[in-house]
């Protein structure tokens, strides 16, 4: 495969290969590899699955099988530059998590699981984020937003 047709850049490949010494099998690098690709591309298109499989000496179906088990990875379109996970589990729900999700979706004009047409924002319902002491909460990319209110949602959306 000539490099011009590759999806995985040399940089991505180097990052994936750096995981090899951590595990006795290459298959164990599947999740780390998916995370690397997802961090660069914001999705894992089918071509990337094939290339990951080549790197890990697996059948593409094995990588595809693992990837689709974790609904975290998108395969049909990249997720937005900003990815919001809004907790809907019990402790957050008891403190208004559902209303926060509704409000966010209404502001953005999309439904949970969707990305805005300009590709900037994906909003997803999430299960317990392990921050129930700060319920209701949202993960915005790598940032936890605590004790959300509709006012805080307004402010957060302005800052995007």
């Amino acid at each position, binding site marked *: 495969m000539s490099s011009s047709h590759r999806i995985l850049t040399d940089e991505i490949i180097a990052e994936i290969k750096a995981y090899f010494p*951590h*595990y*006795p*099998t290459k*298959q*164990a*690098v*599947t*999740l*780390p590899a*998916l*995370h690397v690709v997802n961090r660069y591309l914001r999705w894992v298109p089918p071509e990337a699955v094939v290339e990951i499989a080549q790197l*890990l000496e697996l059948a593409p179906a*094995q990588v595809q*099988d*693992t990837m689709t*088990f*974790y*609904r*975290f*990875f998108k395969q049909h379109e990249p997720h937005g530059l900003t990815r919001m*996970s809004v907790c*809907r*589990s*019990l*402790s957050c*729900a*008891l*403190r208004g998590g559902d209303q926060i999700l509704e409000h966010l979706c209404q502001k953005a004009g999309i439904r*949970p*699981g969707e990305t805005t047409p300009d590709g900037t924002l994906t909003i997803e*319902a*999430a*299960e*317990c*984020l*392990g*921050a*129930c*002491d*700060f*319920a209701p909460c949202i*993960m915005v990319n*790598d940032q*936890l937003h605590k004790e959300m209110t509709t006012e805080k949602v307004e402010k957060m959306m302005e800052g995007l």
Partner: protein
Amino acid sequence: MTDFEPVLLANIQNPESHTLRAYEATGGYATLRHVLQDWSPEQVVDEVKASALRGRGGAGFPCGLKWSFIPKGNPGPVYLCVNADESEPGTFSNRVLMEQDPHQVLEGTILAGYATGASVAYIYLRYEYPQCLKRLQAAMDACYEAGLLGQDILGSRYSLDIIIHRGAAAYICGEETGLIESLEGKRAWPRIKPPFPAVEGLFHQPTVVNNVETLACVRHICERGAGWFRSMGTPPDPDIPHDIGSLGPKLYCLSGHIERPGCYEAPLGIPCRELIDGYGGGVWHGRRAKAVVPGGISTGLLSADELDCPLDFESPIRYGCLGLGTAAVVVMDETASMIDFLHNSCRFFSHESCGQCTPCREGTAWSLAILNRIKAGHGRIKDLDLLLEIGDSIGIIPGTTICGLADGAAWPIKNAIRKFRGEFEEYIKKTNPGGWDVQEPVPALTFVGSH
């Protein structure tokens, strides 16, 4: 109990508590130095056995006993997996430990590795904990630099590498064999046991899986001794065969309708009410509790008149719940709807079932479909019996499924309906006045899932 002094959370008020300097200033790694120099691995196992430490990850299995199942003289490597997948709704104590005091977790991990003969430890960290990742990685870097990790730790000839492996937002990766499959790069389908991981686990090698808090306890047991650990908690119940009691300090997560949500440390066995009022400042807005989840959503529900329940491993069972689980206490006030609670719970388990066992996959999906129907105003009284039938027939306990997720899905159903049946019946009659007593089966396909 007022003179109880926190141990696991002793240092988290210090803003520098995550650094090696702050950790060593409070005696950190002194125990490791001493143990590596003076104790054999067997002595560590024996001390932990003597402490009666039970796993903090949910199952409460005796930790020292689990370690002793590692076959002696295994030719290949032994692996230690640190279970940091923490995804049970209501639970966040591992996060607090890893963020605020990561060295405590690492010292426990190195001690456990030494005891079990592991040369590599994988920390399976849930993806949603980026701050834990940062703090753990920085702590590990400091350890490597100080000779506390890597080859020939502190000149002891014991070597250990720790590798962080990030999950990808799937609850089932917390189940120990699901975790192992996930680490191996596959879908996280739990394995049929036996063989147990101690005999054949990660990469077919003997493997110990331990929870983050369990390992933090190990550090303190090695430092203060088994006797100290046994000095608090609920002693063994002579009426329960092989009970080793519920001993030592425990982290409780308090959330929901509570004045001061948070992670609190108390001796095992603190009564639920005391935790809520004494630590959490009581139910919020001066209201009364209606129902309380005693240990994470899987464990079921205590009703308002069951709050004397001691939060140890055995007592919640006597109150008709699954057990202590992860000791995540979620309070619901008098305005909370048990229909909403159960819907939320069923949605969670249906979403998180890995799908390989038919009763779990179908049972969780159908219980959600029924709850959707009830919430949409089409419920029938008969649905409650149908839900109970699902609740009573899925899980390891009746023997129909591979892992404990299905049991966890069953208890909220059984408890909500048996302890709050009146509320469900009233709701159904009010919202479906024309059809609540219909007995004929309802066409299945008219109702679609919730998302």
